[in-house]
């Protein structure tokens, strides 16, 4: 498992690990999606949207990237299947997915925002690890 839910009284606190930064970002995007929609099976994407985010440091970049994704999910009713991004001082890429279907994607809980509280983004021996709270 690349992400796991940690204890938090009121919100959803996640630990996400990945070998490199782009995969840490895309896995974090899926962690957000599975919080919103519950576990769901892969489907061939039918829609594609560009995504971009900026930030003064890696933490801000991550919060802004996830906030952009949340905006995309809520306004386009998009359930992501594939997230392809590149990272330098900013993040840019595409999110491919299918439309929200109550029969398949109603297993989750709405996320109100991405919090900086208790957040850590660190390099580890095997890559990168993020701990982050989704406010619900």
């Amino acid at each position, binding site marked *: 498992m690349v992400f796991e839910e940690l204890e938090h009284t*009121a919100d959803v606190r996640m630990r996400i690990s990945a070998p490199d930064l782009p995969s840490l970002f895309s896995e974090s995007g899926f962690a957000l999606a599975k919080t919103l*929609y519950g576990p769901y099976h892969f489907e061939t994407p039918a829609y594609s949207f560009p995504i971009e985010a900026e930030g003064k440091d890696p933490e801000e970049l991550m919060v802004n990237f996830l906030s952009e994704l949340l905006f995309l999910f809520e306004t386009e009713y998009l359930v992501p299947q594939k997230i392809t991004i590149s990272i330098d001082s900013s993040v840019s890429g595409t999110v491919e997915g299918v439309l*929200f279907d109550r029969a398949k994607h109603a297993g989750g809980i709405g996320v109100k925002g991405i919090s*900086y509280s208790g957040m850590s983004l660190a390099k580890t021996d095997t890559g990168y690890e993020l701990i982050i709270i989704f406010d619900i």
Partner: protein
Amino acid sequence: MNSQIQQITKTEWEIPIGFVPGMRVPGRFFLSENLAENIEDGALTQLANVATLPGIIRYSFGMPDIHWGYGFPIGGVAAFNAETGIISPGGVGFDINCGVRMITTPLHISDIPDMKGLIENLFDSVPTGVGSKSPLRLSQSNLSLMLEEGAKNAVDMGYGMESDIRRCEENGAMKGALPEHVSKKARQRGIPQCGTLGSGNHFLEVQVIDNIMDASAAKTFGVSEGQICVMIHCGSRGLGHQVCTDHLQILESATKKYGIELPDRQLACAPLSSPEGEAYFGAMAASANYAWANRQIITHIVRELFTKKFGISYEDMPLIYDVAHNVAKWEEHDVDGSRQTVCVHRKGATRAFGPGRVEIPQEYRACGQPVLIPGSMGTPSYLLAGTQGAMEKTFGSTCHGSGRVQSRSSAKRSQTGEEVAEALLKRGIIVRAPNPAAIAEEAPEVYKSSSEVVQTVHDAGISRIVARLRPLGVIKG
């Protein structure tokens, strides 16, 4: 309990200056001795962190439903001086003006033989959960008006009665809303979600008043034993969430610009009098107004359904009151012997103004403001009244709910949603949600006892219990 915490009275505790570096005032929280045993260290630290903010007056307060949040703890209250103080989205929360309202009906339990059918009808009529869509087609100009006028705008569109407006805190619209500081993105999230309940701890509940503790106040508020009521708990949906996200980013830069040292990034803030602080206040007020309109529209859907289903008249379902839980407001309070206008942040806390305040509707004024405290799915909700004690002790504030004690993940591990629903059904409570996990995460056991929390605010003198409401059926997002 942490050894540095000092007990002041049976229900009041103090976090001394020095608990975290930079505290300007002590922290004060209200808990029964029993509830105090389980207070989280994370919540204490957050309460102490708030005490480091510039311009904070008297104390950083925690209500008895205090728990670990982000920035401020949930159940946190703090007032700030108009000239030296700050405003922080971390003291309001992502869900701006998340709040509760209650309508009464002329029905009794015997008038609803098929509660399951009613709950199913409510679940089908009120858009609920992730991915639900607004029953309205709001235009950009409609939305702008809603951001300024709040509940009144919804009533003008046909969603409610004129008398609903003055029974909302702030008459359903905060002054000082600046829709121009609500981003295009926030608008894009707000338009398709207007009139939707959302998810998480948001709910719509059919309840019966099963115990009147203060007959005179109950009479004033127009509630009587055996009466069926509907309680609605939701907020400003994606619009408010986006406003919080957008302005946190702006205020993060402002924090550095104004040289404010913070112990937690989520407490990003700006002086109340700065352009950044004023922009956030205006956008927050606009979001609060959207939330009042949102609850007003959902109320209308409920009334229409009850009218059709039970043949009762729309006018016979008056709004008792509507309170905000997550908001920062300019209010007049007595501070060190003088009347001052201060900015009170309430994050997961309820205004509880005592008798005589002009902000309270005329018909309730002598009694104090109605305060609505929702329980969890299986535990009772309460109607209380604001007190002079709250004015003196907590800038007119009290608790907002029961307060979680168990995490969502551990709740899901201990019981499935089906098991929780089954157990509630045995106690005569019907639960309907889009998925079983949503029920498991909100099981009654994950919250403090609502009765104990409410008894604590009553004993502490910051509100007084008027009536208890027992849940009969609930829809969860």
